[in-house]
Each structure stands twice: as structure tokens, then as C-alpha cells.
């Protein structure tokens, strides 16, 4: 390898190494800058309400800057001339290498001199190892970086300083966001569950949903939020008013007609007659009577199973008593119209001392009775349901059972169209329509149509009556839709009220929900389903749990008053007072006559003084002595030592 090649080779290696070293250093420098920025942002965050997104950007910067430094170092080019000059400086080569590079690059010079210079430079550069010349060590900067990172870590535990206004604002923003989220979700769910029947309703609900979305953007202040909620509430109220009586005056039924498929009155009656037929002659009795018989039967059955066969055989009297009880029970059942063949069989088996058969028959009789109780319960429930929905059109309209009313109207229309009814049935229909006129006035033109139908039916114009009834039915359907939309709007309005309450009181949306009460005042979330009140405690039962008026608490009885009267004993009446009692003032001199106890003391004066001092100290420690007198009292008892 010639001297020129040797020099070029060394320079190339050094340049490559320098590139690596530079990128290494730049990366650490970048890291240092980022840690500084991180620390500054952390300090800023602790002092000022800097948005937390800043940390994301700083974190991103922390990744980008060192990487950029690394890349920049790698991309930097080092010409051989510059590297030669740098090595000259680093290794104190007295510009041998740089001069040689210049000469090698073609600077005109005496060739003999060129050879000399190149040889000199080659011998100097030969000993240089780029790796030892440019080591990759951790820079001193990394210790500072570590120190700053520790500072950052410690700073992380320092609480942020935020002024009250900012905290209020933050809380408001969080509440508005929470309210917006809830409002949007609830309205979205509402729109999905109850598709609006009218475009106006849909627009109104959409505006509520959009308001919720707007709240979640976090760009709205409390006052504006309240104003917007108020505006949209007003809008919804006006929408509800537009629906007229359907939206405001009609009380909706417990089962929403728009949501629940309601069984028609006729179906319910059919089911009732079927059940009654199954129960037979006993259908007129309530389930409680059957339950009474069943409980008695169960008691006898339990008694019978408790006895062993021997005992039963031995206890003749007992068997006779049991037979008598079963006979009485059978009579009771017969009085109620019940046929219990298994009970009869059990009596026979008992009489014939066939214990196994007796027990088996008793079990079957119990099962029969259980079935009868179930049937009776169902009949009662169905009867209650029919009563709730109303037995005729008048009641149905009055109770707001519009789907049932629609079914009734359908039945009437079918009857009119079929022409298969007697005069009495027609008269009954006319009477029913007449009675329904008054409650129908709440349903728009329904009353008018029913009146027309009634007149047409009275005039014998069945087709006209049928048409009028169909018109009434349509009106009712329209009202039904209006009611459904009205309820949706009311639901949204209720949500808006809750939102207003939440924003106004700076509380979360969920806390505005009254436990146990949901939309329309029905039992709602949080406390289970109260449809069956039998499983709940009555108010009296509840109050019994916290009412402790019957308990005697002598430990808490007042002891402040006594019957000693207002008269102070003579011994405790001050005989002379010098000065006045003033806080921080001098203790006045009070002379009491004192209790005069004559005789000899068996306690030494020292012990008495010590006890008095101890009591005084306790009194002082327990703040029983007013502050103004503490020093004087302490001085007094201290003086007693002397």
C-alpha cells in the first residue's frame, strides 16, 4: 500500500468513525434538549393549566429530536481535507496530514518535497487507530440527562397549582361533557327504540342529540350550556303543546300503548272463560280460600308423615282425629264447589289403615289443590287486568287504553259490517257509544265520529256507522301516534331537565336521577322492578325499622335540669366581690362563706393540696377553665406548693 493509499484509507476510516460518533453525540444532545423541554413543560404544567395534550407533543418531540440528531450525524459528510485537519488538531500532528492531503490533491510543489511530506505524514498517521481516536463513550451530558429525569420524576409527585376559577371551569367542562354524552346516548337510544311518527318530533329529538354532541366538544361554557338547554327545552315544550290534548291532558296508560302489544279485550275474556271452565264450579272463589284449604291439608300431611306406621296403628285416637279433620276439609272443599277425589281416597285409606295409600293419596290431593290455587290466581290476575283496561269503550277511553279501545272499535266495525247482531246488541252498542262520547272528547274528533256512528246506528245505517267508527278509529290511531311522540318528547324534556339540573348544580348527570323513579314516574333503574308490590316492604314496615320511639335509653336521658329550684344555697352565695370579671382582666377577688364542716380531718394537708393540684391540672388540660382565668388558676395552685 502506497503512502497516499495509506493516508486515504486512514482518513476514510476516521471519517466513517467520526460520522458514527457525531450521530451518537447528536442523539444525546437531542435527548438533552428534549429532557429540558420535558422539564420545562412539566414545571409549566405544575404552575399553569397547560393542556395535557402538550405532553403528547413533547413526548413525540422526545422521540423525533434524538432520532433526527442520529440521522443528521449519519448524513453529514466529512471531506478528507477536513478530517485531516481535524486529526492534525486532535493528535497534534503539526499539520503534517493536512499538508500531505493538499499535496496529494495536486498542489504544485517540488516532487522531492512531496515525497518527503507524504512519507512524514504516512508515518505519523500509521499509528493512529480511528476507534481509539474516536471512542463511543457515554457523554457527560447523559449524567445531566439522568439528573433532569430524576427531577422530572420527583416533580411528578408535586401537586399542581390551579386557581379556584380554573378548577370550577374544569368541573363545569367535565359536567357538561358528561351531560352531553348522556344526553346524546339517551336520545340516540330513544330514537332507536321509539321511532318518531312525525318529522317535527324527529327534528326536535335530533336537535337534542346534536346538543349532546356539541356539549362533548368541550367548547361551551356553563352559562351558554344552560341557555342552550333552556332554549331547546322551550322548543320541546312548544312541540308538545302542538300535539294538543294528546300530549298534555290525556294521562297515558301504565302500559304504553305505543310500545307494548296489548291483548284485546275479547281475547282476555276468552282466556278468562277457558280458565273458569277448567276450574268448574269453584271458579267464583278467590285463591286465598283454596290456599287456606291447601295449607290445612299440608299441615295434616306433615303430621301424618311424622308418625311412623306403628304409632299411627297404635294411636287410634289420633287416627280418628285425623280422619275427622280430613272429612271436615273435604266438606269445606265441597262447599266451595271443589271436587277432590284423591282426598276421599285418602280418607278411605286411613280408615282401612292403608298408610301407604293414605300418604300417596294425600300427596296427590295436595298437588290437585296446588294446581287449583294456580288457576284461581291466574283468573284473578286476568280479571284485574280486564278491570284495568276497562270493560267497555267508555272505560277504555277514560283510562287511556287506546289499543284496547281500538280493538273494541274493530269488533264493533266487524259486527256492523257482518249484520249479524240482534236489536238488543245494537242497542247495547249504541249505549256503549253514547257512554263513550264524554271520555272521547279528549281524543280530538273522536267524540264527533262516535256521535255520528251512534246516530247512524240508531238510524239503522250500519255502513255509515261503520265508516264513522272507522274514522274514529283513525283519529284514535292518530292520537295514539301523537301520544307516542309526545311521550318521546316528554322523555327528552325530562332528560333536558336533568341535564339542566346537572349543569346548574355542577353535578354528574347520573346523580340527577331520582332512584326508583324513571320516565313517566314509573319504578325505574337502581332499585329493581317493583311491579309486584308483594315482594316489597310497606312504608309501615320500613318505618318500623328505624323507629326507635319504643326504646328506653337511660344513658341518653337529659340530666341538666334538677328540681332544686332557683335558690342558691347560702354557702355558695358570694359575700364579697372586689373588681369585675373581664376576659384577660385581673381575676376578681370573690369571697365565699364556704361550707363549714367541723371536726378533724383524717387527710394530711399535703395530700389534700396534691389532690387539689391534680384536679386543677386536669381541669386546665381539659380546657374546663376559661382562657382568661387559666394563668391565675395555675398560679394559685402553684402557690399552694409553697
Amino acid at each position, binding site marked *: 500500500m502506497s503512502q497516499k493509499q495509506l493516508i486515504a484509507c486512514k482518513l476514510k476510516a476516521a471519517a466513517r468513525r*467520526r460520522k458514527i460518533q457525531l450521530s451518537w453525540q447528536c442523539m444525546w444532545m437531542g435527548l438533552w434538549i428534549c429532557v429540558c423541554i420535558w422539564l420545562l413543560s412539566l414545571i409549566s404544567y405544575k404552575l399553569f393549566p397547560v393542556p395535557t395534550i402538550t405532553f403528547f407533543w413533547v413526548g413525540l418531540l422526545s422521540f423525533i429530536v434524538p432520532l433526527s440528531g442520529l440521522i443528521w450525524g449519519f448524513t453529514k459528510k*466529512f471531506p478528507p481535507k*477536513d*478530517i485531516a*485537519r*481535524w486529526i*492534525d*488538531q486532535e493528535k497534534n500532528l*503539526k*499539520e*503534517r496530514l*493536512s*499538508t*500531505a492531503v*493538499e*499535496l496529494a490533491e495536486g*498542489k504544485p*510543489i*517540488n516532487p*522531492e*518535497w*512531496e515525497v*518527503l*511530506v507524504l512519507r*512524514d505524514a504516512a508515518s505519523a498517521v500509521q499509528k493512529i487507530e480511528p476507534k481509539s481516536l474516536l471512542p463511543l463513550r457515554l457523554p457527560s451530558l447523559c449524567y445531566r440527562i439522568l439528573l433532569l429525569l430524576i427531577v422530572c420524576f420527583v416533580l411528578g409527585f408535586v401537586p399542581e397549582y390551579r386557581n379556584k376559577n380554573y378548577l370550577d371551569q374544569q368541573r363545569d367542562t367535565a359536567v357538561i361533557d358528561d351531560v352531553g354524552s348522556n344526553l346524546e346516548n339517551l336520545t340516540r337510544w330513544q330514537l332507536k327504540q321509539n321511532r318518531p311518527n312525525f318529522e317535527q318530533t324527529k327534528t326536535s329529538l335530533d336537535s337534542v342529540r346534536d346538543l349532546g354532541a356539541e356539549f362533548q366538544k368541550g367548547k361551551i361554557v356553563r352559562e351558554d350550556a344552560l341557555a342552550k338547554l333552556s332554549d331547546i327545552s322551550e322548543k320541546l315544550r312548544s312541540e308538545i303543546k302542538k300535539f294538543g290534548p294528546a300530549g298534555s291532558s290525556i294521562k297515558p296508560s301504565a302500559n304504553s300503548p305505543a310500545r307494548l302489544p296489548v291483548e284485546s279485550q275479547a281475547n282476555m275474556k276468552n282466556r278468562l272463560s277457558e280458565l273458569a271452565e277448567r276450574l268448574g264450579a269453584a271458579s267464583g272463589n278467590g285463591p286465598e280460600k283454596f290456599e287456606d284449604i291447601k295449607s290445612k291439608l299440608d299441615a295434616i300431611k306433615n303430621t301424618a308423615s311424622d308418625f311412623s306406621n306403628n304409632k299411627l296403628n297404635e294411636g287410634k285416637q289420633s287416627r280418628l282425629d285425623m280422619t275427622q279433620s280430613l272429612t271436615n276439609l273435604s266438606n269445606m272443599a265441597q262447599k266451595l264447589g271443589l271436587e277432590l277425589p284423591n282426598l276421599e281416597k285418602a280418607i278411605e285409606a286411613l280408615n282401612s289403615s292403608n298408610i301407604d295409600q293414605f300418604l300417596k293419596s294425600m300427596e296427590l290431593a295436595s298437588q290437585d289443590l296446588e294446581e287449583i290455587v294456580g288457576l284461581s290466581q291466574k283468573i284473578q290476575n286476568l280479571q284485574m287486568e280486564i278491570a284495568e283496561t276497562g270493560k267497555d269503550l267508555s272505560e277504555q277511553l277514560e283510562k287511556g287504553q287506546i289499543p284496547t279501545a281500538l280493538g273494541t272499535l274493530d269488533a264493533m266495525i266487524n259486527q256492523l259490517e257482518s249484520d249479524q247482531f240482534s236489536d238488543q246488541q245494537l242497542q247495547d252498542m249504541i249505549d256503549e257509544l253514547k257512554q263513550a262520547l264524554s271520555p272521547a272528547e279528549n281524543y280530538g274528533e273522536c267524540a264527533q265520529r262516535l256521535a255520528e256512528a251512534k246516530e247512524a246506528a240508531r238510524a239503522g245505517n250500519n255502513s255509515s256507522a261503520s265508516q264513522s267508527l272507522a274514522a274514529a278509529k283513525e283519529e284514535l290511531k292518530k292520537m295514539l301516534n301523537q301520544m307516542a311522540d309526545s311521550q318521546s318528547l316528554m322523555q327528552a324534556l325530562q332528560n333536558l331537565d336533568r341535564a339542566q339540573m346537572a349543569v346548574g348544580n355542577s353535578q354528574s348527570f347520573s346523580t340527577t336521577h331520582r332512584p326508583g323513579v324513571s320516565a313517566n314516574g314509573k319504578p325505574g333503574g337502581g332499585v329493581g322492578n317493583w311491579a309486584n308490590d308483594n315482594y316489597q316492604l310497606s312504608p309501615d314496615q320500613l318505618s318500623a325499622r328505624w323507629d326507635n320511639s319504643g326504646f328506653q335509653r337511660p344513658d341518653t336521658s337529659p340530666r341538666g335540669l334538677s328540681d332544686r329550684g332557683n335558690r342558691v344555697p347560702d354557702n355558695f352565695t358570694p359575700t364579697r366581690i372586689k373588681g369585675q370579671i373581664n376576659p384577660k382582666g385581673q381575676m376578681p377577688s370573690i369571697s365565699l362563706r364556704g361550707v363549714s364542716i367541723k371536726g378533724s380531718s383524717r387527710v394530711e394537708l399535703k395530700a389534700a393540696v396534691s389532690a387539689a393540684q391534680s384536679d386543677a391540672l386536669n381541669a386546665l388540660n381539659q380546657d374546663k377553665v376559661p382562657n382568661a382565668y387559666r394563668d391565675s388558676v395555675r398560679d394559685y395552685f402553684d402557690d399552694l406548693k409553697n
Partner: protein
Amino acid sequence: MTSEDKISKFRATYDALTAEIGKVIVGQKTIVDGTVNALFANGHVLLEGVPGLGKTLLVRTLSQVLDLSFNRIQFTPDLMPADVIGTNMVHETSDGKRAFEFQHGPIFSHLILADEINRATPKTQSAMLEAMQEGSVTAGGKIRKLDSPFFVLATQNPIDQEGTYPLPEAQLDRFFYKLLVGYPSADELSEVIARTTEENQVQVNKVVDGHALSELQLMVKQVPVASHVKDYAIRLVLASHPNTESALEITNKFLRFGSSPRGAQSLLLGAKVRALTEGRFNVSFDDIHAVALPALRHRLIVNFEAEAEGITTDHILDKILSEVPRDSKASNT
């Protein structure tokens, strides 16, 4: 003879010269090195120092070790230019006619000792200008070439200024180096006393003749200088120019005039000689740095403020040397 041989000879000559001078001159290594350096660079030297420090002895010793002709001119206030250069004298020829004949002055010699040069009038001092720069003198309307090599060693006394004439700037600029001769150390003084008060005659040998010296002087000019080193010398000189872009703060504050281009020439030539004496074949920043003070100190002219504050050109040059970066590119790499 190859260049390598010449370089070897150069170093040998240099070492021999300093060794021979060292036999007579005790210490004063800087002065000896500076003087020999200027000799090889073919430059003149102005030696400044209080009396008794061996300035004249140094020059006399130098004349002894060099196989060259030597003249000493003692500058006095009544010394005339003709006393230095020579003059046309009426001379009676063999045929009885009278004719002008040029009588050579003491300047016609290889080595001139201009002792106490500042005691002569500026008119006489100016007589040296042409000789020092051109290596020739003009007398009686005729240019007369001086012997080569021509080397002026002038001395001047910084104290006892009454009746002296400070050298004009033009005259100063023609000196390659200005060397400040300082007091010897205790050991050196002891050695001086021993040598001068005891009976021991020191014999110095001739080391180099004029021809060989001229060859070595030519070789010095061949030493290569890297462009950035040359640039450093230029930047040093430019930094001494007040009220320019490259001027430093101290330059603007305390200098009236900066170095002439001769300063840069002196820097590089002196550095080349130093490189060779150090055994290198190229000039380094250190070489420039080492010769900067003797090469530039007499070329800077301080202003009144500097004189009032006692700021010398050496202070200013120190500042310039410390502030002007050697190789900015290498530092950034």
C-alpha cells in the same frame, strides 16, 4: 544533492551555528534562535535591549562563525549617509589626472552590525533602506549591488532616549525580526561572569560560508505550507488592521496602524525555517505562532491611548494570537 540531504545539512548547519554561538553567548536562546532563524530566512534583525546584555557580542560571534565579511557601523548623531554607503572621492590617477573614485562604505559587507542605530539621524538611518530591501545602494547616480548574502543586525537601546531618533516605520518594516533582549537568569549571569572574568579564551569555528548559506536560504523557500496554515498567517496580519472587518476589539482600541504585507512574509518565512529546525517538512500553526511576536511586534503602531495605558504591541499580539482561531473548520468537524 537531494532535498532530503539538503534538509539534513540545514539542520546540521543550524545546530552547529547555535552550538558555536553558545560557546560565547550564555543563555539568550530565544535571541540566538531568532537571529539564526532570520539569517536562514535572509532577513535583518533589530535587537533591542539595555546595554550590557550581549547584543553586540552576539553579532560579533555570528560574524566569527559565518565565513562572511563583517563590518560594524557605530551609529552616532553626526554619522552621515556617506559614512555608511561610501562616497565619490577625488583621486589622482597614475597619469596625474584627477578623477572621482567611489570609496565603498562599511555597508559593503556580508554582515553588518548597525550598533545603536537609533542614535543616527533619520537621514542616515534612511541610507540603510535601499540596502536592506534591495541589497544595493545608489551613490553618485550609480546603483551598486551589495554582496550576497547581506545581513544587517541592528541594535538599539530602549532607555537613555535623549538625543536619539526613533526608527521610522519604513525602516522598522524592513527588519525581519525585532528581538527583545532580556536579562539573563542567575545561572546564566554566573556563567557570564565566569567566562568574562577568568582567563579562558574561547575559540569559535567557521560553520558555513556565504554560498552554502545562500543555498540553504533558497531551500527554505521550498518548504510547503498548507492553505489553511497560510490562511492563519493572513488572518493574524489582517486582525492587526484597525477599523477593518477582521479587526479585533483590542486592535481598534489601541492600534493606529497594523502590520504591512511584509509581516505576513516574515511570518511564513520564519515559520518555514522553524519547521525545518524542528525536523518537519511542512509549516504548522505552532510555527506561525512561535514567530508571530518577533515578526510582527515592530510593525504595529500603537495609538496614544495604548501608550498612555502602557499597552505594548506584544500585549496586542498576544491577544490577537489567543483570539484568532487557528483552524475553525477542524474545530467544527
